């Protein structure tokens, strides 16, 4: 098949492209989740007014932007070095390590069940971004070498509070839902609470997380 080259309206910055997403939004490609979070914090601190700033695994979406060209020039003048990494609050999450996939993770890692718990409680995680469901934080901090595949066919029902791994991400299901992450255990922590004084999400982007044995 003749695959013609595709016109791209994205302009290249030192790090990645800035891509128009319709007339009122810009998608900024960055090197990874940590850089996405730092850029999102920087945008929110004031240089650009927009409705929503959504960091993700390797992009930041700026939605509800009045002037795309201006937004582009502001973003292109940013460099990760300027930003001071914001160290958020540390939240400790007690976990009952009795998940259905604990043995599977032990096999994948070639370690004992206790060592899986030891590794998981030994990492410091950071909430990078939220998606999938309100309050579902994608946590980085697991070494890439310990990345695991999702289940081939997702479970129809994963209980609220389930703590799981997928690739090198760790996540906690705020509500019961279908899901394909490998489950290590469960927590009684409430991930999403509209009446929480500090905001509904227990783990907004930037929050540091330590898991402890319940």
């Amino acid at each position, binding site marked *: 098949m003749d695959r013609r080259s595709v016109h791209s309206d994205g302009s290249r910055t030192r790090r990645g492209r800035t891509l128009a997403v319709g007339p009122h939004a810009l998608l900024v490609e960055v090197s990874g989740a940590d850089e996405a979070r730092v850029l999102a914090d920087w945008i929110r601190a004031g240089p650009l007014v927009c409705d929503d700033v959504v960091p993700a695994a*390797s992009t930041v979406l700026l*939605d509800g932007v009045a002037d795309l060209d201006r937004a582009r020039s502001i973003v292109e003048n940013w460099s990760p070095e300027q930003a001071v990494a914001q160290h958020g609050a540390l939240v400790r999450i007690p976990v009952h390590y009795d998940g259905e996939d604990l043995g599977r993770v032990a096999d994948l890692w070639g370690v004992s069940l206790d060592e899986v718990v030891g590794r998981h409680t030994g990492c410091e995680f950071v909430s990078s971004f939220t998606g*999938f469901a309100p309050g579902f934080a994608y946590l980085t901090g697991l070494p890439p070498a310990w990345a695991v595949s999702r289940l081939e066919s997702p479970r129809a029902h994963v209980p609220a509070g389930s703590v799981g791994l997928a690739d090198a991400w760790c996540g906690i299901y705020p509500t019961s839902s279908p899901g394909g992450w490998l489950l290590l255990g469960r927590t009684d922590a409430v991930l999403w609470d509209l009446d929480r004084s500090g905001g509904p*999400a227990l783990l907004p982007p930037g929050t540091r997380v330590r898991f402890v044995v319940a």
Partner: protein
Amino acid sequence: MSIRVIDPGPLTTVQDGGRLGWAHLGVPRAGWLDADSAKFANRLVGNAEGAAVLETTYGGVSFVAQRALTFAVTGARCRVTAAGRAVSGDEPVTVRAGAEVVVGPALAGVRSYVALGGGVAVPAVLGSRSRDTLAGIGPEVLRSGAVLALGVAGRPAPLDVPPRDRRSGVLRLHRGPRADWLLEPDALHGASYTVAADSNRVGLRLEGRPVLRRAGELDSEGIVLGAVQVPGSGQPVVFLHDHPTTGGYPVVAVLDPQDLAACAQARPGERFTLRLV
């Protein structure tokens, strides 16, 4: 002042302009799908344009006014009766206390908007009174017997112009951030698609010739209202107000915001021609 719901219809929700600023926590924007019709209804009854209204889905809604009430029905065309008498859509109607208002099934389009004098005054959640059907945030879907409080009514404004007819049979698209995932760059331009039956407030699902694209998924990335995503099946989805905040299928195009109302009122089986602008 309040109304009591008699028959909630298949899906009637409270909606306002939606919940911006929470996408980074995974909260969908929600809000009325056909903004022009909803704001028009509010103006007719003398509400602020952003007041919360009722949004029906195909089947209408009926309720009793607990006190004298002015209401207006806009959007999808339907029969409306007040205390048993036929009344007009697109204009304010005042009824006495105890009158039953019946908003009939949609005769054309999908969603009718019922503005109530004073606006629906249920408590706001994260700054909005909109029901998000994806994550379940905001006021409950209407149920029989539910009582909805209303705010303080303003002065009705019967002289107003309804939104122009937005049904052109065309959806205008902007090139999306992942248009380079298309194997045929111009595949969408001029293509014709049919609205699928499982379309809802999350997205308008289109059926037709599969869009050929690179295999695989992206890292999850932020999604905008109107994003046209192409999953593995090749059948495009146009995301509407209850869309997930992030997703991993490539967004190959973005709907022009002017055509959102046409999507809100499109019935299964309706055909659209896509046009890149």
